[in-house]
């Protein structure tokens, strides 16, 4: 089976600062890879590279599929009066990047949008204005928006941030189901591993240009993380959850990640 994503000898530098270098990473179809690390460690940049929005400083990467990747962003507040319904949001994931009005094949489009919405169980609120939905409802629609193009690679940038526990579970279960049913490779940037721990096959942990790749057991232990952070870090497992104690300042990150959208011009 050929790899869904293959990154070799990759490095990324901004100005004089190297975010990471010598990164070799292969993600198999259907694999769930969690990408962890403190702020500024280049997690989101890695996604940007795979989205084609940024270039590697060295090395190369390739994807097996030429279908567009799916992308699930972090939940953000939307204008309450925004003229956009759930169905419109999901539909934009299908063809929003294409030129023209898209007046042909409307019936087929409607069928696909409805199927995508059904697959995430969002029928009840799909025709409501998105700005009035809860964060969890919005993120369900985001998953449908990302999956409607039937991607072979799904890139998730902190999709669970600012969701309550129930919605964190629901949204991560939807992503897990997709990769099991359709063999979609999932690259999941997160600062909180526990909500997805039961799904994660491997972890890529980035700290200050250093990184480790391996199963959660191989990476999420006191020895490995202490080496990565170059300071004493304690990893404690409580009730199937992993808690990292030590470099609080480095590990606790609540700041939002951004995909560097150019601000609009009037």
């Amino acid at each position, binding site marked *: 089976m050929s790899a869904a994503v293959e990154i070799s000898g990759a490095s990324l530098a901004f100005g004089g600062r190297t975010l990471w270098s010598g990164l070799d990473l292969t993600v198999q179809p259907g694999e769930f890879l969690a990408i962890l690390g403190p702020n500024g460690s280049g997690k989101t940049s890695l996604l940007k590279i795979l*989205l*084609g*929005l940024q270039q590697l400083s060295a090395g190369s990467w390739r994807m097996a599929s030429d279908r*567009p990747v799916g*992308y699930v*962003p972090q939940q*953000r507040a939307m204008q309450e*009066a*925004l*003229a*956009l*319904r759930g169905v*419109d*949001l999901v539909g*934009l*994931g299908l*063809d*929003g*990047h*294409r*030129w*023209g*009005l*898209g007046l042909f094949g409307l019936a087929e489009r409607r069928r696909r949008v409805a199927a995508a919405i059904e697959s995430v169980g969002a029928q*009840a*609120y799909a*025709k*409501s*204005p*998105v700005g*009035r*939905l*809860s964060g969890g409802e919005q993120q369900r629609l*985001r998953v449908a*928006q990302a999956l409607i193009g039937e991607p072979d690679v799904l*890139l998730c940038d902190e999709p669970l941030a600012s969701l309550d526990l129930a919605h964190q579970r629901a949204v991560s279960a939807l992503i897990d189901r997709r990769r099991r049913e359709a063999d979609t490779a999932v690259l999941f940037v997160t600062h909180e591993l526990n909500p997805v721990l039961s799904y994660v096959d491997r972890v890529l942990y980035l700290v200050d240009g250093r990184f480790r790749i391996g199963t959660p057991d191989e990476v999420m232990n006191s020895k490995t993380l202490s080496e990565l952070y170059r300071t004493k870090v304690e990893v404690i497992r409580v009730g199937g959850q992993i808690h990292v104690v030590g470099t609080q300042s480095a590990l606790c990150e609540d700041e939002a990640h*951004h*995909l*560097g*959208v*150019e*601000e*609009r*011009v*009037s």
Partner: protein
Amino acid sequence: MDKLFDFGLTGQLLAQPFVQTALLAAAVLGLVAGMLGPLIVTRRMSFAVHGTAELAFTGAAGALLLGIGVEYGALAGSVIAALLLGLLGGRESDRDSVIGVILSFGLGLGVLLLTFYPGRTSNKFGILIGQIVSIDSTNIVVLIAAAVVVLLVLAVIYRPLLFSSVDPHVAAARGVPSRLLSVVFAVLVGIATALGVQIVGSLLVVSLMVTPAAAAVRVTASPWRATLLAVLFAEIAALGGIILSLAPGVPVSAFVTAISFLIYLVCRLIAYRRSRASRISAPDVARVPSAVGR
């Protein structure tokens, strides 16, 4: 004002060719303004429209002084304004102040240009508050041609423009060229504004470009339906405004703005009643789909 209900006079005036030309111009403008409006509202560009209109005034004043067609001056002014705002106001944090700076400078310059103009004062006043009777058969050809260009370009960029307007982060992730689209859209708005200046005047262009769309998005969340409603509202305001202004002989803009404001109030009232109704039937508003947009 008792002439307002002088239907005989209104009927006579409606038969005049210059009034029919004016109605055609207003219909074209209503269509363009309604098509662009929901995107202007979503992108929070109301103030930019106003700023662009003031520069259209500057351009028109300059054209008046030079003795060339006011419509060309307005067009040049508003396209330059759109490009300036696009280049200087790239960051959202800067945008508000950049518009204020350009708007006031343009208005001042326009006033200066007008003081040098030796012609009639009604021409001067007309650029500010609209003077639809001045549209003749050459104007109308230019107006229709410009409108066709705007609508064609809009049709080509519509989907990615909507995407980057309502969902900028995912649109960027999908490779939608947001920066380019913003500049192109600003130029389209500039052209449409220049058309509007000839009918409602530069001070009140917002009443056709923004108010109908702002009313439409109150009552529907569907982008398509919002666009259809915005066109409908803009047509009612533009055509209705002209017809009502005929008999009393007051500037068109007074009625255009009044009608569009009235439509806006009605739409707000509808939205308010709907949200109250859904709150009464469902205490947990966030979980239950509201009736808006159906």
